[in-house]
């Protein structure tokens, strides 16, 4: 779950990280009062779940409250990549004498978090790492050891941070690590960490990715966050707790188990088609979940066929077959549906489907089913 800048900055503020004052608005008319409260000269910043908004016109200066209204008006409703700007953040302007990068995320192969510092902030850190590797330092953190000032100091100096900024920077980094741990983040970033002309460090932007698995202990926060997608189908899938990712192709896919669904997408590609989505109905799910899944998978004009690939393990294929029949009878899909049932009681499952006379193609192997679904999509 990704936060918007203003959401992340509110979290930063809770941990006493230095952030500029600001106010989020959804109507341009509110920009005037907000700008006035913030001292007149402000930044207008589009709140969207994507990077690169500066280049896309999503960050503007305004010198007067009226100019703030005008800029907010231009910005609200515009598109940045696939995201529509629904909120803008009115923030006090800060002078910039230097920009650093500070971030935490984790290294899966070592099962450890790591810290990155760069003396080149305000730009994409991956790009800095490629073009100016000597300006970027990264260290793994042993969670039993913790992160201590000497480490931050050492790495920051090696990355080219000026000594006069080290004191503030150490304090900010330790707080940022508290955000990382305390909020169950997958990633926390301050980019840029601005040194103002007065020499004070302040967080120019915020980036936080939260771990949805930990939502149960951050309920209030999660409930308050803007969803990080605008897509109504993805939103619905989330509500129904269905694991769904929209893709660009025309063969809709439903399967059970993340690995099997990914493999089904691979198979669609391999047989010359293009998958329209990833959709894992999960283990043990039957008619209700299947019904919603089919609705979600088919909710796109691009989709030309549906491939249901179920492997029966503990849940037997005969049970699955009965579930499919119930749903298909009820929702009457108009597209060709190919069903493949394999595993426990697969033959019983297939004969139940056959006898039901519902309009689905029943296949024995994954390859056969995939080839058929791809062919339907090409025809359709």
């Amino acid at each position: 779950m990704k936060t918007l800048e203003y959401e992340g900055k509110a979290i930063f503020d809770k941990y006493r990280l230095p952030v500029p004052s600001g106010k989020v608005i959804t109507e341009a008319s509110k920009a005037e009062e907000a700008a006035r409260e913030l001292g007149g000269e402000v930044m207008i910043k589009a709140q969207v779940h994507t990077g690169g908004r500066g280049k896309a016109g999503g960050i503007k200066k305004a010198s007067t409250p009226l100019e703030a209204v005008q800029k907010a008006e231009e910005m609200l409703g515009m598109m940045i990549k696939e995201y529509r700007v629904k909120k803008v953040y009115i923030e006090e302007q800060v002078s910039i004498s230097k920009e650093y990068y500070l971030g935490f995320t984790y290294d899966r192969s070592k099962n450890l978090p790591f810290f990155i510092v760069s003396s080149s902030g305000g730009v994409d850190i991956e790009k800095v790492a490629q073009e100016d590797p000597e300006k970027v330092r990264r260290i793994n953190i042993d969670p039993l050891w913790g992160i201590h000032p000497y480490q931050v100091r050492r790495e920051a100096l090696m990355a080219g941070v000026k000594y006069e900024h080290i004191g503030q920077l150490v304090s900010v980094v330790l707080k940022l690590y508290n955000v990382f741990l305390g909020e169950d983040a997958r990633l926390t970033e301050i980019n840029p960490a601005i040194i103002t002309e007065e020499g004070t460090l302040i967080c120019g932007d915020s980036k936080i990715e939260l771990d949805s698995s930990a939502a149960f202990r951050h309920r209030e926060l999660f409930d308050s966050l803007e969803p990080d997608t605008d897509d109504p189908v993805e939103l619905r899938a989330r509500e129904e707790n269905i694991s769904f990712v929209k893709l660009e192709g025309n063969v809709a896919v439903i399967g059970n188990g993340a690995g099997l669904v990914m493999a089904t997408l691979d198979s669609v590609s391999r047989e010359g088609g293009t998958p329209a989505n990833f959709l894992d109905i999960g283990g043990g799910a039957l008619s209700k979940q299947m019904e919603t899944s089919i609705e979600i998978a088919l909710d796109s004009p691009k989709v030309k066929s549906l491939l249901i690939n179920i492997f029966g393990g503990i849940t037997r294929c005969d049970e699955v077959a009965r579930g499919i029949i119930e749903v298909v009878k009820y929702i009457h899909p108009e597209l060709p549906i190919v069903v493949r049932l394999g595993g426990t009681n697969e033959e019983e499952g297939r004969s139940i489907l056959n006898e039901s006379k519902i309009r689905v193609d029943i296949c024995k192997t994954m390859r056969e089913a995939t080839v058929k679904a791809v062919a339907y999509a090409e025809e359709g």
Partner: protein
Amino acid sequence: MGIFIDNEMKVVVQGITGREGKYHTGLMLQYGTNIVAGCSPGKGGQIINEVPIYDAVEETVRHEGANTSIIFVPPGFAVDALYEAAEAGIRLIICITEGIPALDAMHALRRIDVIYPETRIIGPNSPGIIIPGKSLIGIIPGNIFSPGRVGIISRSGTLTYQIAYDLTNAGIGQSSVIGVGGDPFIGVKFIDLLELFNEDPETEAVCIIGEIGGSDEEEAADYIKNKFSKPVVAYVAGQTAPAGKKMGHAGAIISATAGTASSKMKALKEAGAVTVSTPYEVADAIKNVLGK
């Protein structure tokens, strides 16, 4: 008997009184697994499926000699169960629970590694281990496996079943099958298992079923290249997955710079593994490497 499993294995089921725990305990007992106890705080003294229940894992070690644990406890309590098992002296823990917060898992794995270095953890979010025809600790459907000489290591449940079923139908049995789990932080990794399979006299060839995200496959490739002496067939799921999107498993995310299926396949291929691009090509590839 198989990877991680010998005749001395005595299993305690943590969370045995929950729906999943109870159900799969029945299936494991049917398969012949030596389950000696269950653990469920406050339910001590009960008997479920002829298995005695205790309030604490430590009691199951003391009274029943438990040395292996399987965890069916919900995500908010599963890490506590891991700590309890490790402190009680359990040396193999299979954690089935899905949805444990990543940082909880990370802390638990590191702590247990440092304080109880003898303890091995499989998972979280693992389907378990099966030694076909002999023993099953997990939620794996035993009926689709058959005894034989091919080892399987995998990050995915259903996909493993799919491939094992194909092997079984092709007359190729399996020696040991281990699901390492679909979470970003897991205990036993591919490379640890390859070391064990390298020494395992029951195993002639190994099938690796990878996924996008992380770098376990790349590390495995490195090991295969330098030290592994048996034929390997590998399939990595997610060749069509876009970067930054979670493909079902919490661990299946391609980051901006690493974790793509193609980089993993490339590494494995260069290391000498036979790689295939769909699960239904695995059985033939295994036949080839075994010279059948």
